[in-house]
C-alpha cells in the first residue's frame, strides 16, 4: 500500500508539474501589487500544492473505483454460484 501511495504521489507531482509548466505565465510584469514577485511566488506554491492534492485524490479515488468493481464482481459471482448450487441441489 505504501508503494502504491508513493507511486500515486509521484504521478500527482509529475502531473501537477507538467500542468504548472504549461500554465507558467512567461510575460509577468510585476506592475500591479497582487502581481508582485512575492505574490507570484505565493500563487505558484499554493497552486502547485492544491494541484497535487487534486491529482492525488483523483488517482486514489479512481483506484478505489476499480477495487469496488472487483469486490462487487466477486460477490456477484459468489451469489450466482450459490444460486446455481441451490437450483441443482433438489
Amino acid at each position, binding site marked *: 500500500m505504501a508503494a*502504491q501511495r508513493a*507511486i*500515486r504521489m509521484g504521478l500527482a507531482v509529475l502531473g501537477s508539474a507538467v*500542468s*504548472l509548466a*504549461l*500554465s*507558467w*505565465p*512567461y*510575460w*509577468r*510584469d510585476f506592475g*500591479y501589487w*497582487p*502581481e508582485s514577485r512575492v*505574490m*507570484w511566488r505565493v*500563487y*505558484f506554491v499554493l*497552486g502547485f500544492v*492544491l*494541484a497535487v*492534492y*487534486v*491529482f492525488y*485524490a*483523483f*488517482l486514489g*479515488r*479512481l*483506484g*478505489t*473505483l*476499480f*477495487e*469496488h*468493481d*472487483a469486490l*462487487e*464482481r466477486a460477490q*456477484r*459471482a459468489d451469489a450466482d454460484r450459490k444460486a446455481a448450487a441451490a437450483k441443482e441441489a433438489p
Partner: protein
Amino acid sequence: MIRIEYQTQRLSLRFFMLMLVLFFFQVGFGLLLAAQHIDPTLLAGHLNFNVVRAEHTNLGILWVLSGFIGAILFVGPLLSRRELAAPVLIKFLFYALLAIVIWNVATQALAQQGIAGWWHGEPMLQEGLEYLEAGRIVDVVILIGFAILCYVVLRTFPPLSRWTEIHWGLGIGVVALTFVWTFGMFFVERLDLQEYFRWYVVHYWVEGVWEVIHISLVGFLLVLMFRADIKSVGYAVFWGVALVWLSGLIGNAHHYFWIGTPEFWQFWGSLFSALEPLPLIFCFWHVYLDAHQDGKPVGNMPAFAFLLGSVVLEQVGAGILGFTMTFALTNVWSHGTWVTLSHAHLALFGTFGMLGLAAAYYAVPLMRGVESFDQRPGKLAFWLVFAGMLGLGFAFAIGGTVQVFVYRTLGLDWFGGDVAPAMQFAKVMVPIFGLVFAIGVCLLVYDLLTLGLRAPARGDEERAPVALRGWGRRLIGWEAGLWLLAMWVFGAIITLGLLSFNLHSVREGNMRFPYLMASVGYSGLLLTTLFFVARFLRSLEARGRAGAGEPLVPGETAPAAAT
C-alpha cells in the same frame, strides 16, 4: 423492463416531448446559421445572423433544461419511493416553460431594431449578451420556474438523514441551478465586470451545476439499466462531483484571461482547468465499469448508446478539446475563433444533450408501456447524430485553425475579403455534416414522438446476432484504457499545434507545423472517438447474444485496474 410504479413519473413525458420539439427547431436554426456563414447576405434585414444565433443558443439551453427536468421528474419518485410533490406546480412549470420559449423566440428578433425594452435601467425584452440573450422578464419567469423545480425535488426527496450521494447531487444541483442564474439578472456597466459575472452563469452552470446533475443522473441511470450497486455508484457520484468542483471552481478563471481582468487569472485559470478533465476521466471509468458489472444483455440499446455518447463526448469535447485551448498560451490564439466552436458543440450537445436523449429513450418506452420496441431507428439516429456532431467538431476546428493563422498571425481582419474566403473549405463542411446531424435528429424526434404509438415493426431479435469475435469481443479494461490513451495522445498533438502558434517561425508566417498538427490531431481524435464508441456498442450488442445462451469469454476476470 420495469413498470411505472409512480403515476407522477408520467409528468416527465411532456418535458421529454417538448425537449424533442425544441431540439428540432434548434437544429433548424443551426442549419440556417451554417448557410448564413457561407452567404452572410442570406435573409439579411429579415432574419439577421445575430437573431438566428440567439435563437440557436437559447433553444439549445432550453431543450437541455427541459430534458433535465424530464429526467429529474422521472427518477425523483424512484429515488424517493413516493409520488412527486405538487404535481399541479409541475404542470404549471410546463406551461410556463412553453410560454417562455415562445415569448423568448419572439423577443430576440427585436435586436434587429435595437429594441431592448429598457425599464429602470434593465433590458426587459432581450439583452444581447451571448447565451444570456433573454430579457429580464424571461429571466424572472425562469427563476420562478427553477424555484418550483427546487420545491418539487426537495419536497419529494426523503428526509435528509436518508439521502444518498445521488440525492445530494440532484438536491444541490437544482438549488445551485436557481442560485447561479441570479448572477445573470443585472445590467452591469463595466464590460470586464459584466463578463466576469456572465461566466458565473455560463461556466458555473455548465461546469458546476449541470455537471453535477449530469453525474447524478448518469449514475442513477446506470443503477436502473445495469442494476449497479447504488452505494458504489454513490461513491462515484460523490467523488465525481467533488473533483468537478475542486478543478472547476478556480478553473472558471480560464474565462478571465483577456476580458480585462488581471493576468494572475492566466496562471490560476490555466493550472486548474488543466485539472478539469480529471473528473471526466473518473466518470468515463465509472461508466465503463458499471456497464461491465454484469454480463447481461442491454435491454435498451438506444438509451445506452446515448448515455455512452454523453460520457464519451464529455471526455472528448469538454475534457480533451477543452484542455487543448485552456492554457493562456494556447487560449491567446484560440480565443474568439472557430476553434472554440468545436469544443462548445461537442461538449454542450454531447454531454448534456445526449444525456437528455438517453433519459428519454429510457423513460418513454416505459411510460408508454412498451414491452419491446424496434430499436433500429434509435440506433441509426444515434449514429447519424453522433457522427454528424463529430464531423461538425472537425469542420469547426479546422476552420478555426485557419482563422487563427489568417486573423491572428497575419493580422488580416477583413472577414468578407480575407478571413472568410480562407475558411471557405471548413465553412462548406459545416452544413454537410450539419445535414447528417439534422437527418439523425429528424429520425430521432420521429422515433421518440411516435414510439409505442405507431404500429410495431419487426422486432430487433430478427437481425443476425453480432458475433463475440473481432469488434464484438468483450471490451476489457486495458483496451478501453488504450482507446482513452489514444484520444489523449491526439489531444496532446492538438495542444502542441496550438502552442506552436507562439513559435517564432509560425509568427513569421510559416503555417505548416500548426496546420499539420491540427489535421493529424483533430482527425485522429474524432476518428478514435467514433471507432471507440463503435467498438464499445458492438461488444455490448454481442453480449445480447451471450446472454441468450452462449457463455461469455471463458475465465471471466476483472478488467485490470488502472493502478
